[in-house]
């Protein structure tokens, strides 16, 4: 009886595992399909946007013919180029600051129990909840009455003259801290705390534990938060408009102010150029990584 049951079981087992393999590869296939679909959705309007940067008319919505004119106009429009640099400058600086501050805050909020935590929770969510326009107006008034002002600092660094729009950077950091903190916190929440204990158990002091274990483990969260902050900062219009000093423009401020006269494909050209740049950066980093030795990649290595 027992031998019978064995002979019966063998084919059924293998059939089952073959079916499981089929199911698994089907699952993998549909997952891939889903992934590609997701990226198709994200890039669909971007493709349209790039196509219209070659449009032979002022319209960004009606195709008239092919031209490179807008790229020429863009290169000669020193104001647009300057505002693009300003955007990148503000986004990079405010991302760096908010990533550091936001990550520390996330660690405090996720890892510690202390009095006043609820208050800090509220303080951290508020910048996300507040309507843009209310935040913009309140910061504008605040910079005025506090005497902090708007006039960008003129700094000369290695012979390059920089105008540091501190009022804009301060404001961007004020909303970005929260976004970084939330993403990093989500990552920390599911991180195994015994990993840090293990490090401490293996003679790593608090600092070493942080640098060798906690930070690498938080990295996907930090990178996610940084990307989010950078993107929000790069695309912010309302708060930047109201908190910038006279003579300082970012690209979104320029573009939004074009609304009344019509946004031209010049902006598509600027956007396409940025797209090409970022895609090129990815390509280069991929090539470099392939060339380099097999360093452990932690989450997102930029």
């Amino acid at each position, binding site marked *: 009886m027992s031998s019978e049951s064995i002979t019966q079981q063998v084919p059924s087992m293998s059939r089952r595992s073959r079916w499981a393999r089929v199911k698994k590869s089907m699952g993998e296939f549909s997952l891939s399909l889903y992934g590609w679909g997701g990226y198709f959705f994200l890039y669909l309007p971007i493709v349209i946007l790039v196509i219209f940067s070659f449009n032979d008319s002022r319209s960004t919505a009606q195709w008239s013919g092919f031209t490179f004119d807008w790229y020429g106009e863009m290169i000669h429009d020193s104001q647009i180029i300057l505002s693009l640099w300003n955007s990148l400058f503000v986004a990079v600086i405010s991302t760096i600051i908010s990533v550091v501050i936001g990550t520390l805050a996330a660690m405090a909020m996720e890892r510690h129990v202390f009095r006043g935590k609820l208050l800090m929770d509220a303080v951290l969510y508020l910048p996300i909840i507040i309507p843009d326009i209310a935040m913009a107006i309140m910061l504008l008034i605040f910079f005025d009455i506090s005497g902090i002002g708007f006039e960008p600092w003129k700094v000369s660094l290695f012979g390059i003259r920089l105008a540091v729009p501190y009022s804009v950077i301060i404001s961007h950091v004020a909303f970005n801290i929260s976004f970084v903190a939330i993403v990093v916190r989500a990552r920390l929440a599911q991180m195994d705390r015994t990993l840090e204990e293990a*490090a401490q158990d293996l003679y790593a002091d608090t600092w070493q534990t942080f640098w060798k274990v906690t930070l690498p483990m938080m990295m996907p969260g930090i990178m996610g938060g940084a990307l989010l902050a950078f993107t929000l900062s790069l695309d912010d219009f309302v708060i930047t408009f109201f908190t910038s000093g006279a003579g300082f423009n970012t690209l979104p401020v320029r573009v939004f102010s074009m609304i009344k006269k019509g946004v031209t494909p010049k902006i598509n050209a600027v956007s396409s150029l940025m797209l090409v740049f970022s895609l090129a950066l990815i390509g280069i980093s991929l090539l470099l990584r392939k060339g380099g030795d097999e360093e452990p990649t932690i989450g997102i290595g930029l």
Partner: protein
Amino acid sequence: MSDGLAVELRQVVKRFGEVTAVESVSLQIQHGEFFSLLGPSGCGKTTTLRLIAGFEMPTSGDIIINGEMQGHLPPYQRPVNTVFQHYALFPHMTVAQNVAFGLEMKKVSKDEITRRVGEALELVHLGKMGSRRPKQLSGGQQQRVALARALVNRPKVLLLDEPLGALDLKLRKAMQGELKALQEQVGITFIYVTHDQEEALTMSDRIAVMSAGHVFQVGFPEDIYENPNTRFVADFIGETNFLHGTVHRRGPLAEIAIAENVILPARWASDELPAGSSATLSIRPEKILIASGDEKPPSDGEFVSVPGQVAEVVYLGTDTRYVVRIVDGVQTVVRVQNLEMGNKRFKVGDAVMLHWRVEHGRILKE
């Protein structure tokens, strides 16, 4: 190595807010000992281990490792290493990097690290796995990496927190033997936390049984099994029969009445109780002989004999399990090894006689 103890806990208390996790625990662990903390989950055994490791600081009491007071020393300054329940391997490092971590922190020279990491991996039979990621290993292999990562530092004491809990039964059995052999090979003191009494009994030199933050009994495995001093220990370790009753007569050999006319002699497990107070007689099923009414107990020693009626018979392969009713509402389990073929001597309803040696019965406080 008899100069002092490997680890000593003196009156250690740990509270988390209102909850007391460890209540006045004192332990003395010898050098080179395989010492187990055994108890059900939530009994405070893991907290005790974490107190020794330094992950938690005691609310009061002292922890002494290798003759040195630990006070509030952080984990990284204590001469102990831990093997965690879920291994806690660093996923962003290779196996070799994991094992080398502690040595790097101690600023050991590069050459020596390479050598010792190699040795440690050999020791756990993972010599060729150094460049893999923990995720690429099986559960048992990860377990060995965790062990190598701790042992490579040559700690005075190795703390193991249910290290085999996540493995399947077969692997666990194999690892038990390996772990014990390894401990004998390296000669390091092991403090081993487990809720599995069988695991504790097979591997340990000594066992501390814990419950609700207290240590109930510390002793050699056979001591704990044969001479449980509390009802909890008797119940937690192995199978046992509890016969409730009242103390009938005090004295070095007490008598307990479990029913009218059924008065059984037994030894005190701990302090004597006054006559008339309620108590429990504990007797292990395999210590009871089951016989027909006319059979006499062996003549070498003093036996307790009780008549009864078979209520249930279960054949278990190596042995047969009988449930015997002594009086209404009082039943005992008896296990008989199947030494011969077809050893089904009794059927349900048979009148039988139970015999056991007086010293095997122990009277416990209620």
